[in-house]
């Protein structure tokens, strides 16, 4: 089946307006530069509306969305149960002088849900939680240094950056130590070399970094990391902002068989309502209580109500299992479509967070072309980032996705007679 390519006149016009009043038009990961819209002509810039697993751009083009707003869309856009809970709370109160009682309900639900959680500290973005976790680790251990795994991304605060990032001072990252993933001897070596100086190890539950095939860590790896932390009184922070609740509703540390000292959640917490949560263990409760970190909207009630409804529905649907099933079906379909058209599609990471790479060349040219052909026919993929499954995705959507992917492969093949 052939799918016509979309056009994006209104997106372009709106982007031109945006660049006059917003630096770079759309900055950050949703924008064309960081979002790697290659070539930019194939991508929409702005959406008009969204429902379930779809969004429509301002030109009226419909997309099956596998980026899910880069994670927050976990049940489907405009989920009726989550929205009803949020709207009911909105009528009662949202941003109030005394926080709503729903905050306590939400914290209790999270402590009951997340295996390693004894307490919850609410904020707004994933970056807030990784920042607070690092501060808590430093306050508790009275140490400076933090170990990161290579290719890390834990937010955009200067201490989380690298020394060559624009606007970051070398002094701000002096206490960062970077070790390779899945290399226990290297980790042991830096721990030994910095004995008594390391406050924390911060890591995602597996290497789901950008621009490379994702690598899943073993339970044995995490058991060794946990032991090193226990032996050296290092706090283990799991950044579950991206993967959280997509592998395991009890937390990705639970999925990999260990307990984090602190675990950071954001994206899948409230199905798009803006909140984040740092969960931690008892021994850190006093340290975090003594810190001065807060924000104007951190205790707003509407997202808490949405979060409760979202978590309850995720439990009811057993979303990690559902995502695994849907993701596996999709991956298998894409691989067959690739093979039948002479392409080598490498899929890595967990099925709920699959990462794609066309491997016929090792420079990503064909991969970027294929992704662009998919997007311009209505399947929103990204060429550099893992994807996300949401609960509104159906078998029919997967079938359509595979058909479009196949059409996109044919288009790439037509552009490259040398592949025949």
């Amino acid at each position, binding site marked *: 089946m052939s799918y016509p390519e979309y056009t994006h006149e209104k997106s372009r016009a709106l982007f031109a307006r945006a*660049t006059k009043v917003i630096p770079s038009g*759309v900055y950050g990961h949703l924008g064309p530069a960081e979002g790697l819209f*290659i070539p*930019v002509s194939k991508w929409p810039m702005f959406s008009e509306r969204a429902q379930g697993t779809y969004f429509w751009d301002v030109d009226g083009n419909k997309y099956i969305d596998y980026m899910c707003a880069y994670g927050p869309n976990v049940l489907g856009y405009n989920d009726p149960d989550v929205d009803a809970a949020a709207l009911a709370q909105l009528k009662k109160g949202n941003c109030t002088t005394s926080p709503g009682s729903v905050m306590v309900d939400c914290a209790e639900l999270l402590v009951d849900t997340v295996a390693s959680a004894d307490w919850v500290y609410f904020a707004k973005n994933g970056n807030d939680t990784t920042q607070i976790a690092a501060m808590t680790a430093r306050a508790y251990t009275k140490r400076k240094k933090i170990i990161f795994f290579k290719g890390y991304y834990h937010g955009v605060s200067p201490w989380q950056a*690298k020394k*060559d990032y624009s606007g970051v001072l070398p002094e701000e990252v002096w206490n960062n130590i970077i070790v390779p993933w899945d290399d226990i001897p290297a980790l042991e070596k830096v721990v030994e070399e910095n004995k008594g100086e390391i406050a924390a190890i911060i890591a995602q539950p597996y290497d789901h970094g*950008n*621009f490379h095939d994702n690598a899943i860590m073993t339970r044995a790896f995490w058991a060794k990391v946990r032991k090193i932390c226990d032996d050296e009184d290092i706090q283990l922070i799991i950044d579950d902002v991206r993967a959280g609740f997509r592998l395991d509703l009890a937390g990705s540390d639970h999925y990999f068989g260990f307990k984090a000292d602190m675990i950071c959640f954001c994206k899948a917490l409230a199905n798009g309502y803006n909140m984040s949560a740092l969960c931690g263990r008892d021994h850190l409760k006093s340290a975090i209580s003594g810190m001065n970190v807060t924000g104007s909207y951190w205790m707003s009630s509407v997202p808490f109500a949405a979060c409760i409804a979202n978590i309850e529905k995720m439990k009811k649907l057993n979303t990690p299992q559902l995502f695994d099933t849907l993701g596996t079906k999709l991956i298998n379909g894409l691989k067959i479509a690739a093979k039948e058209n002479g392409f080598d599609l490498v899929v890595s990471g967990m099925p709920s967070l699959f990462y794609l790479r066309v491997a016929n060349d090792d*420079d990503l040219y064909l991969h970027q072309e294929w992704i662009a052909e998919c997007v311009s026919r209505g399947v929103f993929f990204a060429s550099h980032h893992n994807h996300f499954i949401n609960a509104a995705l159906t078998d029919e959507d997967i079938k359509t996705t595979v058909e479009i992917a196949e059409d996109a492969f044919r288009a790439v093949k037509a552009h490259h007679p040398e592949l025949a």
Partner: protein
Amino acid sequence: MTDAKTLAYINMFAVLGALENLCKLDEQAKNILSGTKPVSIGFDVKDGPKATLSFEDGNCLLTEGCADCDIRLPFASPEKFNGLIDGTVTPVPTKGFSKIGFLLKTFVPLTDRLSEVMRPSEEAMKDPAFFDLNTTLTFYVVTCAISQLGNHDPISTFSAQNIEDGDILMSIKNGPKAVIRAKDHVLTTLKDCEGTPRSVMEFGSMQLANDLFNDKVNSLACIGNGSITMKGMISMLDNMNRILDRVALYLA
């Protein structure tokens, strides 16, 4: 936030290196060189770069090392060499006194012309040919500076450590091109070469490139409107762009 030794490498291989292109592209430079005998000038910077500029048949070529030069200009430190480029230091040759006339009558006018092109008046830039010359030379200076920063600047070497082996092609549409070649995290710029690029970044026009070099437009906005295109191993471009960010710091 800048390092004198890195600046010396930039001044040597990017700024003086632009004489290669000036002599090829500019009629005034060609006239200055016209009728001169082959001469080579060695720049010998203690604890810094060493290179030779060779002039022959109207062409100029910059090569690493200065063992076989006709005129040798020693500099006691990178700072002293940077002073030459700033115009605050006058070098004294230790070899080639008989060819000192070339230094005074040819090399100095050539470098003056280079300064005129690289630091133009607003009036001069109204001439389209001069505008293109300025943009082209700036392009070569910038692309050569990227490699020098990546190899010497304490911050940029970190970026270079994250660049995989391979060629990055930078170009201006219908204009100059250069390859930044990464091998074991050491960068080399090859002018007017397409190489076998693993990643590509192209500026859509000379005007756009000039505006970017002069910070008149935002590069991310240009990616958004399609006037800068990139493809391939974006992680290579990403790390190279972190170096590019620091070029302005050194060349300001």
